[in-house]
């Protein structure tokens, strides 16, 4: 535990930290410049609950059709001791998988305590690394330190040992059609797999082995074309691993954000919640809507103060440092004379305004 841990507990208002899973950890890389998100995530604050309390519930629902499809596909791939999966690994990827042992680490003698499950994962993997015994380890329960907290990772992958190396196998229900899948979905899968690779590597290192025995090549198992038949595709997650490692390193710098904040700040539900959230600076961009529970709150805040960033990252960049719509328009119509800093932006905005007006006027005159 780091020195910031008591502060982080206070931020949660005494509530237990929200569990991280690979998805939430991977999401840390989506907007790393956002102090609000960084802090709330580091503290394990339930952002969904906070957003709801503030009147901005997130509409991230999932259709039961998608859930059913995902579960059915996973069950099918894993049926009969992963029979279909093994066929794939052997035939599609041409791997020599001699003998097969399948260990499911999800349930330990009726007791699903996380400590126990993690211990069992450690023990089995330790043996596998020593002796080469074991092939498929389903639902390994892994741990990763996130901002001083040990987070358990929801186990929905298989660790696969072949030729002395461990690979992560990730089963996803989006389709691979003619060798390609939705790039955003593949990217999300790669980010999540990277979290598992990293956690596995840390575990392997703890067990006294070379972490590179966990391969950066993961196997993505998806339905092929329009069928339920699985196909496996190797996926190199080195870029995602690099990003993840540097973002985790950055999270530990959360103490710098904390230093700037009032000492009694808390995200506990109550009258002060709104002010508390606003006390931590957000870096809202429209892309946040795709993955952060706070996005609708932050969007409302950004729009209310006329932030140019609410229109998109590129808009803000085009305006070279002008943060608000009002200022930009005042510079454009000449009603505000720019400071030296903004002289250039102002000149460009005025030129843009003149050219727009000229073109629109020409057409109006032509039509008249």
């Amino acid at each position, binding site marked *: 535990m780091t020195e910031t841990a008591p502060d982080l507990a206070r931020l949660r208002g005494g509530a237990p930290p929200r569990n991280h899973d690979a998805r939430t950890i991977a999401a840390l890389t989506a907007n790393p410049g956002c102090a609000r998100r960084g802090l709330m995530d580091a503290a394990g604050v339930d952002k969904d609950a906070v957003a709801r309390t503030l009147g901005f519930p997130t509409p991230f629902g999932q259709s039961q059709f998608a859930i059913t499809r995902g579960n059915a596909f996973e069950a099918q791939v894993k049926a009969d001791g992963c029979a279909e999966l093994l066929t794939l690994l052997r035939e599609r990827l041409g791997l020599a998988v001699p003998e097969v042992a399948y260990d499911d680490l999800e349930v330990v003698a009726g007791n699903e305590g996380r400590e126990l499950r993690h211990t069992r994962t450690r023990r089995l993997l330790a043996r596998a690394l020593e002796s080469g015994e074991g092939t498929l380890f389903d639902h390994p329960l892994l741990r990763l330190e996130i901002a001083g907290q040990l987070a358990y990772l929801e186990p929905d992958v298989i660790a696969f040992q072949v030729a002395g190396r461990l690979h992560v196998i990730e089963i996803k229900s989006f389709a691979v059609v003619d060798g390609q899948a939705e790039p955003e979905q593949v990217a999300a899968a790669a980010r999540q797999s990277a979290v598992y690779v990293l956690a596995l590597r840390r575990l392997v290192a703890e067990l006294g082995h070379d972490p590179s025995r966990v391969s950066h090549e993961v196997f993505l198992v998806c339905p092929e074309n329009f*069928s339920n038949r699985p196909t496996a595709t190797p996926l190199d997650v080195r870029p995602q691993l690099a990003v993840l490692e540097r973002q985790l390193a950055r999270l530990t710098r959360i103490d710098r954000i904390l230093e700037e904040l009032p000492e009694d700040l808390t995200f506990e539900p109550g009258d002060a919640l709104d002010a508390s959230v606003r006390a931590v600076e957000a870096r809202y961009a429209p892309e946040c809507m795709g993955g952060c529970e706070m996005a609708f709150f932050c969007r409302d805040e950004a729009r209310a103060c006329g932030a140019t960033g609410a229109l998109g990252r590129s808009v803000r960049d085009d305006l070279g440092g002008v943060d608000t719509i009002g200022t930009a328009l005042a510079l454009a119509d000449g009603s505000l004379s720019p400071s030296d800093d903004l002289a250039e932006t102002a000149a460009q905005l005025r030129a843009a305004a003149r050219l727009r007006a000229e073109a629109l006027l020409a057409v109006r005159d032509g039509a008249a």
Partner: protein
Amino acid sequence: MSALTSLAQLQAADAGIAQPLATVRHCHVADAPLVLVPLKLAGEAAAPLAVMLGSAPDDASLLVVPQPRNRDLRFAFAADLAKLVLNHIETSRGAVEELPPGKEGEERIRYGNAPQFLVPNRGGVAFLRLLGRSTRFRSTEGPYAVDPAVPVLGRWLTWFAERYDHPGSSLLRAMTEVLRLHWATGQSSLEDGNLAALVGWIDPPDGLDGPAAAAQAEDPVVWPPAGPATDPTFDNEVLAPAIAAYDRSGGDPRTEERLRTAVASQLTPTWELMWRAVGLLRALPEGASVPGRWERDRDAFTYYHQTFGEAYPQARRDPPVRAARRLHDLERAQDAYDAQRAFDDPLVMAEYRLAGQAFGGTVTACEPERLDETGKRPKLRPRVRIATEDPVRLDVGTTVCNAARPALKGRIVELGGDGVLLELTGGMGRKLVPEPGTVPREGDRVVFTSLTEGSWGAAKFPDRENTPWTHGGPPEEYTPTDEDAEEEWS
């Protein structure tokens, strides 16, 4: 994105209503386009749930797959869809125009018209592409036989999806993209992906402004998503029970009707939006080069229609030569399309002016009959000086042309405080005095640009059988296999 577009967005946010990004319409809008609003089952690649389609606002057909996981029902849906779509294709091509014979004396024709498909968004295009992919290889005989119209539909959908990739083509368009080409809203491009919000900004209903209309549009109860993804809450609370009831009843028509009603409630608002959007586009005057691009579309359509019987279904992926050739065609089309839009529309040209690739202003001095007598024969080389406030970023010596009349060409001789000095080099007739009206006069307002249309020549590519060793040698010619035809669609 440019600073000009960004400014328009700021103005839209400030005014509470969308601002024009174009003064003319840059795409063709057919008299009777085929509007398609597809929905797919969540979690599946391309399992159709429903589509609402038709070529007039009051003529919507609704096709629904009552149990999207049932492959027979899916193929029945595909067959029904095929009949409607193919009928539209056949009735939209108009009369045959005879063209002058080609270089080798071959007969050339062009259909007087072509079908135009409109879908709400890019997701709709992707869905049609996948639906095309999943149906074009099907066999019409043997153990997995489908209705003969199904693979025909698959090939046409694939063809339209490929034309969508072609810059400037209007055969298949996504409405959100077309609208965004013509208007800037006060929200981000991501939010513009919601058709209802986008139309809300452009044409807010009475009593609302853009932001209020867009806020309403984000409530899936008021405005169901424009597809192909459905609203998860609808899935869980309405669709799933309705499908379950249908299953339990063993296909009772009454349960099917209830299902259709539920699905129609999700599609109708988008259907109406699509036609409102068509109306918004029709209200804009057509850009000068739009008919020319539509003619290219008609040529492409004529060719595919004429050769349909001889061709195989399109391959799954492009072989090397096809890929290279297609990339070249697309880049060429993009280049021409960008230039044509700028020449058609002063507001688009303004982007180039702001970027310094074009400049406009008043002619302050003019020598219309100046001759260059340094060569063997004198040449007509009028000079004009243009005062401009634009941030010109062109070098001396650059060739430019007149935005209003691109045939008039010139060369930049001098750039400085009192404007740009141009020496005109072409587009003034063949004599030593310019044709009347060709050379701008003092006081005229003119725009010149370095932009040119058609600077890309056609390129040569090897034939498939000459695919070089660097690219794996000649690939086998694609012929559909039984395996293709039997591909599972579950």
